[in-house]
């Protein structure tokens, strides 16, 4: 397949002497970090590094240009629109619609060019002015190439109209730039021919046109030979030009800004009905004649030549090398693919060329703090590796704000990227726990459906409560809803908080039942039972009897369970209870309160029989 296309470009890092020093590096999300180092394993080394800097190398700098941002944004809209209407593109209107899409892209380029041009003019210092100007010429070249591709590949102009399209093309791009000089040559001649061709509503066949044109040529020849223009060398020269005399044309070389202007002019006078397949022949000879062996073709020349040769792959390849980012080739290739022009030119990256270029372009967008969102849509339309590439990139987006995190999560959830959702929520939950923001940690755990982590955070909440006597993030816990079921500990947390609420509302009966059920249903961790029993004390000491006799028996059983210290369980709490004086006092108090309550409950239940 292909080989190395040329020498790699070299980027020099200031301050690091590459002859003596080594560099270590690491990949970032959108950049590379490089710094000087020594890989020498010996402790002492003469080649100890002395450059103290770490350098950040950016590959996709264009992503950061705020003028180009409009280009990226608007072309994104066109791209997505094109993918969506793909199914609707049928029949005769298909070509027209594709041409329209192509023109949309070009108008976006031109708008960007215009804006860049304004910046160039208004630039305060010459260096940035130059930079803007060079960007303008790059955009201009891009539009030039795209336009030619539109004519040759998408419009697929047949013989006859082809030349008119090329004339427009030259007029638009070349004559625009060199308007003054081209005026002389460019304007005179088309007017003579427009009436001749009489194209709007053209009913003549190609053969008829050819015939007419031949007659006209013969007439010109006759005039030249008869010496009709002998008195005026300029008119004679003009006549020669109109007969397509190349030498005469080349004499006006300064007025022809480049070889493709020469080509189109030449074709206009000698082969106006040129067929697409013959184009490359004239193109190559025009290039050769125009350069005249004095200079060699520039990259732009090679790209245009490849287009004239209808070698789409060569066009894309040359553009990929010449341009600094993937925007152009990615969008053009995608459009050409929709025109069904790319065969299965299988690049061995497991996907076709269109997808490869889109993946590269989209990856570049992910380096940017907000343009990454555009990248998502490009990945969506890459059927083979789009999804997995998105998965890899989206995990690396720095989640600086909650808003950004939610945006990322929404994108993942929309695409059922459950693993990424889980991972991102876990990362945020962990970060929250480390910063002691338990409420945030809990909500992220719930969103991640991470039962284990939810348990962990709930434990922290409970521990906090034990230490401080109050809950944090009450709103969150009160409104857990069905999420409470995620983990037992979380359920307990929610129910325990509910107990406190009921108590606060003085619904003592409900509170009491809930409290007891937390222990009997085993939802409460044993480590918390003492706290729960202590919470029962105020209920036991109310004037009215709240716990029934049966409930009191249950509570007593729980207390004995807790304090019995069964040997095989080696309950650390039981051990602690026995050792700690305060704990012993608590237990005593509880036993007393329970006994008293039991007595009162029995009496009350005995007396109220039948009511």
């Amino acid at each position, binding site marked *: *397949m*292909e*080989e*190395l*296309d040329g020498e*790699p*470009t*070299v*980027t*020099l*890092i*200031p*301050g*690091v002497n*590459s*002859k003596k*020093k*080594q*560099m*270590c*590096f*690491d*990949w970032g*999300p959108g950049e*590379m970090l*490089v710094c*000087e180092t020594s*890989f020498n*394993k010996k*402790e002492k080394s003469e080649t*100890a*590094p002395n*450059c103290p800097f*770490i*350098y950040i*190398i950016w*590959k996709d700098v264009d992503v950061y240009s705020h003028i180009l941002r409009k280009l990226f944004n608007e072309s994104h809209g066109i791209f997505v629109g094109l993918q969506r209407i793909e199914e609707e593109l049928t029949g005769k209107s298909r070509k027209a619609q594709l041409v329209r899409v192509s023109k949309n892209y070009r108008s976006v380029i031109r708008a960007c060019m215009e804006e860049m041009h304004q910046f160039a003019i208004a630039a305060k210092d010459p260096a940035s002015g130059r930079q803007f100007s060079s960007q303008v010429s790059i955009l201009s070249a891009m539009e030039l190439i795209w336009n030619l591709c539109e004519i040759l590949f998408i419009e697929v102009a047949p013989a006859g109209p082809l030349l008119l399209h090329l004339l427009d093309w030259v007029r638009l791009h070349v004559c625009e730039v060199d308007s003054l000089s081209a005026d002389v040559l460019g304007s005179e001649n088309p007017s003579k021919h427009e009436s001749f061709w009489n194209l709007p509503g053209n009913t003549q066949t190609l053969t008829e046109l050819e015939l007419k044109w031949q007659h006209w040529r013969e007439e010109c020849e006759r005039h030249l030979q008869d010496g009709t223009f002998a008195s005026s060398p300029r008119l004679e020269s003009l006549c020669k030009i109109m007969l397509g005399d190349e030498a005469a044309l080349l004499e006006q070389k300064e007025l022809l800004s480049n070889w493709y202007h020469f080509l189109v002019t030449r074709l206009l006078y000698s082969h106006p009905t040129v067929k697409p397949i013959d184009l490359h022949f004239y193109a190559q000879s025009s290039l050769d004649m125009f350069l005249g062996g004095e200079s060699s073709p520039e990259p732009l020349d090679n790209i245009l030549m490849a287009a004239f040769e209808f070698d789409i792959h060569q066009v894309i390849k040359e553009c990929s090398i010449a341009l600094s980012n993937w925007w152009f080739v990615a969008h053009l290739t995608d459009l050409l693919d929709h025109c069904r022009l790319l065969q299965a030119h299988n*690049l*061995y*990256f*497991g996907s076709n060329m269109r997808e490869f270029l889109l*993946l590269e372009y989209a*990856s570049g967008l992910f380096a940017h703090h907000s343009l990454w969102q555009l990248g998502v849509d490009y990945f969506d339309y890459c059927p083979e*590796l789009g999804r*997995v*590439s998105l998965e890899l*990139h989206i995990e*690396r*987006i*720095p*989640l*600086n704000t909650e808003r950004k995190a939610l945006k990322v999560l929404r994108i993942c959830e929309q695409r059922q990227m459950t693993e990424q959702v889980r991972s*991102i929520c876990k*990362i945020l939950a*962990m*970060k929250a726990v*480390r*910063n*002691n923001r338990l409420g945030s940690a809990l909500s992220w755990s719930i969103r991640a459906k991470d039962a284990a982590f939810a348990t*962990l955070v709930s434990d922290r909440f409970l521990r906090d409560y034990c230490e401080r006597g109050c809950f944090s993030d009450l709103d969150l816990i009160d409104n857990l809803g069905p999420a409470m079921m995620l983990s037992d500990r979380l359920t307990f947390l929610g129910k325990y908080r509910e107990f406190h609420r009921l108590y606060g509302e003085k619904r003592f009966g409900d509170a009491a039942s809930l409290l007891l059920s937390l222990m009997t249903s085993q939802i409460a961790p044993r480590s918390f039972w003492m706290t729960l029993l202590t919470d029962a004390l105020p209920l036991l000491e109310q004037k009215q009897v709240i716990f029934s006799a049966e409930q009191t028996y249950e509570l007593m059983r729980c207390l004995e369970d807790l304090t019995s210290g069964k040997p095989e369980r080696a309950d650390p709490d039981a051990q602690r209870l026995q050792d700690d004086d305060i704990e012993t006092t608590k237990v005593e108090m509880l036993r007393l309160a329970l006994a008293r309550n039991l007595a009162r409950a029995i009496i009350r239940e005995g007396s109220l029989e039948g009511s």
Partner: protein
Amino acid sequence: LGRTRAAQRGSPSCRRELCCDGDWHCTASWKTHSGSMWRVTWAHPEFGQVLASCSFDRTAAVWEEIVGESNDKLRGQSHWVKRTTLVDSRTSVTNVKFAPKHMGLMLATCSADGLVRIYEAPDVMNLSQWSLQHEISCKLSCSCISWNPSSSRAHSPMIAVGSDDSSPNAMAKVQIFEYNENTRKYAKAETLMTVTDPVHDIAFAPNLGRSFHILAIATKDVRIFTLKPVRKELTSSGGPTKFEIHIVAQFDNHNSQVWRVSWNITGTVLASSGDDGCCTGILKGNGSPVSGSSQQGNSNPSLGSTTLSLQNSLNGSSASRKHS
């Protein structure tokens, strides 16, 4: 996540941590090992802000960032705390790498004594408890390790080990070990027989759903291999996976020893660093092998179906020229 961060080993044993919120600034700098520190690596942010380092002083260490309590002077500020020191090695620990996150909080170290040790922290909230789960004997002084990042259920956990052993008996310098579910142990799956020069770095490429693996090796040149698992039915059951090994690329553009290789996120670009500076190259290959035997690299490495174009070469420069 949250901010871009980088950890750097300073000289000789001081670590610096840098944080980027737009501009980079150093958030922490502290002395670590008692000898030169070789490598430092981040754990996945799912486990919090955790670093591991390894050193000439025969230890590896795990560090955690602690954010100051909200009611003291250190509110919001962070500092790093050593959670554990792994002291099993009797020689310099040359590399440390965390395992892919789907394996839990696990890391591997390799030492000059030829042993690869795999540790696990069963409780991710308690980073002081690590247990040595496996000791793999490589019989050669080890210099580098790389975990296979694939989380596919079709792939067992796998680790590649490189050696820079210069003794004359030591031949093949790259070994692949695979975890066996039945024996619950790591067993040698393959040896790359064609790599006989000292190996300085090794890196599996990210797996984008491929069935096979791609491994880059930094030795006297840059080499890229593919490892295609041979279907299990064809091999004796219960043993380690057999692989078809092919070299798909070889670059000697550095014209020197290559010290580091590293893949970008999607595995489309491999960066390497040699004595002449740093290179990045774009890979457009699926790793299809070339028919025939081993390939010799030269400065024009076109190997059959793989296209490589070196797009950038980063060099140092003593002149103060702006880099583009």
